[in-house]
């Protein structure tokens, strides 16, 4: 089964339009929930006023004063309140303050507008510069949500002696995940003789995160909270932490009103209030010898973390751990900081800090090549990590890593050398449209960072079904990435069954163990491996009980399962994650194996820059990657193509425009994601190199494709119309025009 393009388990229902998303689920006696938000970036809440003309007695109104348990969303740092209470500080302009529920959605909306918040304003800060200068102290003693240092060797003496010392500044903007299905949660609250029980269903990536948040909010025992992830229309990290907040809101309304409550954000609310990719700025100082060998690297990496810590500590961690790129370097200093601002907190988004720091280093490498008069291909070739090399944290490359081979393959696929020559000649005549080619070489760490997986100690399992089939038990969720199918393939392979005999159980905390959150490119590799182990145990159990004899037919297997159930009532096997003994990590010194393994890639692209309008057209895109073994080629290709499309949007068009801490372009007419008309054919090549960490040799794939497009595109644009100061994404036509004028002005 592994290596075959099995058809999506849930694909038929989606194609036929039969899939029910959270907003579609029919619920008897349903009330709708809405959120009243602060409209100032910072201040003290002094009062809440309910306007005239609204039948308030029909409404359920929840404020912070109603909260029975802890008014903090369970997270890495529990600093974000579900609701701001009277006398408490409002930290950003989309902060939830009052919750309303009513059966009539139109009346609910009218009521939302009729609530007036009295907030005593405080001075606010909106960008990283102001936060670092501490124009206002808004968070802790230094406005730092998290600070990380990675040190290897000592760069200081190198700057004096190196043949080349080259510095650069780079910036990346916020980006909206733009899942097609907006955030949606359904909550039920029931009280029986044992007390209150809360049930949550919704569009959420991490059922056990929500489970923890609800248990804390109501101070309930774990078995009084049940969370189920329904089918999702995309997530991309945007439904990692924010659903905990919405689920808390919906649960509070359901509990107080006595009715099931559904909260569905419309696109504008979703864009304005929920998480985005962290904006970043990076300063890189690098030293090379006369032959272009990298001697020292000093990286100052900063993220705008918004008003609360949320996921910033771990996004910062991944960003800093990818900041040195795919290069061997004896002396490295990396300083990472996540800075507080009075803006809605950014959060997880495919790539999780890595697209930001990799943009900086991969753009920087091209600029260094320019400054040293070297070919960017050759400069990279001389500095690639290889077997036995150590990375910035001291992690030793233990795989037979061939980055030069990856790069060469991508360049051949693009016909890079011939195009370089041809475009150089053509561009010399200053045509209206100038063409360029560019590329980036990069990686992505698979699974949780550092000791994350060890702390999670995830569990997944298999369960016998009465008809002799098998069900996979895992909390991992299906958000369109194909987890149902891949899990079924992995189990089917290990059981020796056709995929039709393997079901995947709903991601329901009352039924499935905690296999961890559906994030960090970990589902296939980490959870898949657990499923594989549980499947082997499942099969062995049947054999040891004398119910199954190898070789067996699917019918014999089903008969054995039925016999097992007849004998013992139920039959389940589980496997739990254990860190491989050779993997060491120290959280305090940031030394050791940051990830069990990495995926590696080279993306190469051809662009056409229209110098009449400064629009950039992406004419060709080649994505070559090594992701261990590919489990489902069709799904994997789709993952890469989708990620590249998002990466192109990040690099060229998608701009979050902030005004006083608030997103100004919250509609699809003014936040431009690419359409098919904007995208070339995205050509995908997998070079397979099986890795023992994952099932059948698979590594994680989901995030990798996001990391490479932005620097590859800007490198190509620089070839077409440069050298220009192309140090920022999105490189919109407006910015590109400005950069061209800088050069024209001299």
């Amino acid at each position, binding site marked *: 089964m592994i290596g075959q393009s099995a058809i999506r388990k849930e694909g038929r229902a989606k194609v036929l339009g039969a899939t029910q998303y959270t907003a579609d689920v029919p619920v008897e006696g349903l009330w709708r929930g809405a959120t009243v938000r602060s409209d100032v970036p910072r201040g003290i809440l002094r009062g809440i006023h309910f306007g005239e003309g609204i039948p308030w007695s029909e409404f359920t109104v929840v404020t912070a004063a109603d909260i029975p348990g802890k008014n903090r969303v369970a997270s890495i740092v529990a600093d974000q309140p579900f609701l701001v209470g009277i006398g408490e500080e409002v930290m950003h302009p989309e902060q939830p303050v009052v919750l309303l529920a009513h059966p009539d959605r139109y009346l609910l909306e009218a009521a939302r507008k009729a609530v007036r918040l009295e907030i005593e304003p405080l001075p606010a800060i909106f960008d990283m510069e102001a936060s670092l200068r501490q124009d206002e102290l808004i968070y802790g003693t230094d406005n730092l949500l998290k600070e990380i240092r990675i040190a290897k060797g000592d760069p200081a003496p190198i700057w004096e002696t190196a043949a080349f010392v080259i510095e650069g500044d780079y910036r990346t903007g916020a980006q909206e995940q733009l899942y097609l299905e907006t955030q949606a949660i359904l909550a039920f609250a029931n009280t029986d003789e044992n007390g209150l029980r809360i049930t949550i269903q919704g569009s959420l990536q991490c059922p056990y995160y929500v489970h923890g948040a609800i248990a804390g909010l109501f101070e309930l025992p774990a078995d009084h909270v049940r969370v189920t992830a329904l089918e999702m229309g995309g997530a991309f990290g945007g439904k990692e932490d924010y659903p905990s907040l919405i689920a808390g809101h919906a649960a509070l309304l359901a509990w107080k009103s006595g009715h099931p409550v559904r909260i569905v954000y419309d696109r504008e609310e979703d864009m304005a209030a929920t998480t985005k990719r962290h904006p970043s700025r990076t300063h890189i100082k690098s030293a090379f010898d006369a032959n272009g060998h990298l001697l020292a690297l000093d990286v100052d990496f900063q993220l705008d973390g918004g008003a609360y810590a949320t996921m910033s500590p771990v996004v910062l961690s991944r960003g800093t751990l990818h900041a040195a790129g795919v290069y061997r370097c004896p002396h490295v200093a990396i300083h990472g900081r996540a800075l507080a601002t009075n803006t809605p907190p950014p959060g997880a988004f495919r790539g999780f800090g890595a697209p930001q720091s990799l943009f900086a280093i991969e753009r920087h490498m091209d600029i260094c090549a320019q400054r040293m008069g070297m070919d960017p291909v050759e400069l990279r070739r001389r500095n690639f990590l290889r077997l036995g090399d150590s990375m910035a944290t001291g992690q030793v490359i233990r795989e037979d890593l061939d980055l030069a081979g990856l790069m060469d393959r991508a360049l051949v696929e693009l016909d890079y050398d011939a195009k370089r020559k041809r475009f150089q000649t053509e561009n010399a005549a200053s045509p209206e449209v100038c063409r360029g080619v560019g590329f980036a070489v990069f990686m992505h760490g698979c699974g949780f960072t550092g000791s994350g997986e060890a702390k999670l100690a995830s569990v997944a399992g298999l369960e016998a079904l009465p008809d002799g089939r098998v069900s996979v038990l895992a909390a991992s969720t299906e958000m369109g990435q194909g987890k149902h199918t891949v899990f079924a393939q992995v189990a089917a392979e290990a059981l020796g069954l056709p995929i039709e005999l393997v079901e995947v159980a709903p991601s329901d905390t009352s039924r499935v163990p905690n296999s961890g959150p559906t994030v960090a490119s970990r589902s296939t590799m980490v959870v898949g491996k657990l499923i594989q182990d549980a499947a082997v145990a499942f099969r062995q159990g049947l054999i040891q009980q004398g119910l199954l004899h190898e070789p067996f037919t699917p019918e014999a297997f089903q008969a054995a399962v039925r016999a097992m159930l007849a004998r013992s009532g139920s039959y389940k096997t589980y496997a739990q994650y254990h860190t491989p003994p050779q993997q060491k990590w120290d959280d305090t010194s940031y030394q050791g194996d940051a990830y069990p393994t990495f995926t590696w890639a080279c993306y190469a692209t051809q662009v056409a820059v229209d110098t009449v*309008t400064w629009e950039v057209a992406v004419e060709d895109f080649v994505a070559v990657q090594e992701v261990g073994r590919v489990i489902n080629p069709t799904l994997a290709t789709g993952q890469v193509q989708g990620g590249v499309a998002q990466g192109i949007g990040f690099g060229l*068009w998608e701009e979050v425009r902030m005004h006083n801490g608030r997103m100004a372009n919250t509609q699809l007419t003014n936040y*431009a994601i*690419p359409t098919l*008309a904007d995208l070339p054919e995205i050509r995908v090549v997998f070079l397979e190199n099986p890795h023992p960490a994952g099932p059948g040799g698979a590594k994680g794939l989901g995030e990798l494709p996001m990391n490479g497009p932005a620097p590859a595109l800007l490198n190509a644009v620089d070839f077409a119309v440069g050298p220009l100061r192309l140090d920022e994404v999105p490189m919109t*036509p407006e910015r590109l*025009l400005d950069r061209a004028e800088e050069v024209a002005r001299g």
Partner: protein
Amino acid sequence: MRGFLPAMELQRPASLSEALQMLAAHTGRPFAGGTDLMVVYNAGKLRETRFLDIARLPELQGIRETPEYLDLGALCTFTELLAHPAIHRHFPNLVKSAKATGALAIQNRGTLGGNIANASPAADTPPCLLAYGAELELVSPRGTRVVPYELFHQGYKVMDLAADELVTRIRVPKPSGTSVHYFRKVGTRQAQAIAKLSLALVAQVADGCVANLRIGLGAVAPAPVRACHAEAVLQGQPLANLPVAVALEALLADMSPIDDIRSTAHYRSIVTRNLLAQALRTLSATGN
């Protein structure tokens, strides 16, 4: 949806005369394709609550062709424009701009009259209608009048349209002789985008010189505008030696671009001039 649907009232007049009476009695605002109104409603920003559904009025439908001009009903959808051979034959800029308007679903509902009377400075077809020298037929209970389209827009959402008047038909004269048609829209992306700016140019070539040149501009002024200053510089000039630099300078007087959510005043100013330069290169090439 942030609008309050229970407060909305949509009436459907049975005839043009009934529609005009209702309009005169301030019974509601005309609602044709609704492609812009529904977006504003969805955002909770639609002030009016009463509307007249004029989408089925027969007098405002259909495309009639005469030897001199095309007479387009105000309710012509972009899809209908795109399906008509005479539009393709005589008005290639209208084809381009209709194709560049919204998504297919929008093209199926959105109407030419709505595109005009909605008066968005960023609408795609108005610069083309300006460059083709279109005229509008306006009807009220007081009678019918015809106004040149170039005089219709008078400021941001300000039109030569009385409260009791409807835009009923749009007449576009067919260009004669050797004509050059140029239209380019610069949006945030290649499809389903609202214009950052657009430029339409139509000219005839007579004895190697520019004749009947008209330029329409989108999204660089409070309303779609004609580039009269640039036109004046170019009118009658020999194709072999067009005063391009002077025309580009003159174009500055024709626009008043702003910074907004979609682009910057600077970008709009530079790129509109770049488009005119490109259009003039096309024009010169055609003459040779």
